């Protein structure tokens, strides 16, 4: 077993901002896991992992002179996800730090502090390391989808998210 699986989100920042969407090829996700992950190169990447493995997320810009950082990664309870399916991949269109409605799953305390409205422009997202260990209780063959929020520069249309990528434990 590889000790670590790396997931890279490659973003066409100019394409995403001008089209207000992470879809249409503006976001490609890849991983280097040793099992065959599904949908490599798309926003629907389903990364096959094993309990105890470290998963690490990184965002990279296609044009190296454009800024993009991961703003948040949150795992979504199954019931909540359908309600949030609309507007997927669209700009959230909310100003920073103004008591924004919480993305699903975060009200229950499964997110880090970034999306809670306590951070503003000085987020220093570049200092964040998005790394964690796969819990042992995950059921094999179940897709644990997560919301990936990306921030491109600043301003009210700078944060976009998708809910389609997932982790899945390998079936024995």
């Amino acid at each position, binding site marked *: 077993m590889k000790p670590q699986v790396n997931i890279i989100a490659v973003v066409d920042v100019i394409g995403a901002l001008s089209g207000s969407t992470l879809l249409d090829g503006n976001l490609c996700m890849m991983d280097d896991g040793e099992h065959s992950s599904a949908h490599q190169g798309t926003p629907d990447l389903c990364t096959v992992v094993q309990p105890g493995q470290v*998963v690490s997320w990184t965002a990279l810009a296609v044009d*190296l002179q454009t800024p993009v950082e991961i703003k948040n990664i949150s795992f*979504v*309870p199954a*019931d909540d996800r359908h309600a949030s399916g609309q507007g997927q991949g669209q700009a959230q269109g909310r100003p920073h730090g103004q008591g924004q409605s919480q993305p699903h799953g975060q009200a229950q305390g499964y997110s880090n502090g*970034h999306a809670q409205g306590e951070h503003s422009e000085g987020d*220093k997202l570049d200092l964040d390391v998005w790394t964690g260990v796969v819990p042992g209780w995950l059921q094999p*063959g179940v897709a644990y*989808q997560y919301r990936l929020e990306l921030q491109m520069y600043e301003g009210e249309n700078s944060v976009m998210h998708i809910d389609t990528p997932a982790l899945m434990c390998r079936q024995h």
Partner: protein
Amino acid sequence: MPQQLAIIVLVDVGSALESESLEGNTYLFDNMKLQGSTGQGTGELVTAINGSYWRDGSQASEQVLNWLPYSLGSIPPTVPRGYEADRARQSDEQALAALQDLASKSSVPGTDQSEQLSQVRKTVGARVKTTRRTSGRLSGQKILDVTGKVVTEDNTAAYTYPAPVITDIYGEAVDSKIMYPAEYGSPDLVTDGWYWSATVDTSRPGTYSYVMRIQLHKLVGLNGELRWEAVNLTCPSALKITSEPRRNAFTKAGMGMLPIPPGAGTRPGTP
């Protein structure tokens, strides 16, 4: 952070040559305003460089700086490389056609040939003299104005300047090994095939000054010939380096289990 940093050095070439100084004639921009750069669009730019380090103190991100000189009052650098040569050739062709026209009319009595010849001379423009020192893209071409027209005797004031060239980057930030600048070849002809770039050591926070040596070109007429003469000027700027520790974004501390809620997950195929 993998984002590359660009510093634009915009020079008002005409004013700089007139005052023989870049002070007040240089406008600096970078793409790090979000990260805290100050003085955008002035000569007082301080470029913010935010580094980061791991728990053991080692540098966690490498910053790359690129410098691009732009010019006020020049033909844009995005026009094709052969533009000057093309424009010069066009004006030659026009002059040849005018001469041919003149030759065919010369048999007609009463034609004022000297007047027409002088007209041809006026529209043909002037070529810049090539010397051993100034050979290169600038020489042998005609002088154009910013709209690409060949400069003639009637409008000599309106010529376009060659783009400024950075010839060296030195000073405190280089001496104290904060940055390692060098000039690189580039396939991007907007930069004339060359550009200055540096990597930065972010392990020693502070503000460090540096100096760019910038070469401008002045059109000099001597003994009836025109040539571009190099004028070397300097322009100071500064880097402000900060560095902060990396942190785990999920836990805000060390590494932990991924925060997956118990109810999460769907089997493929289930709605």
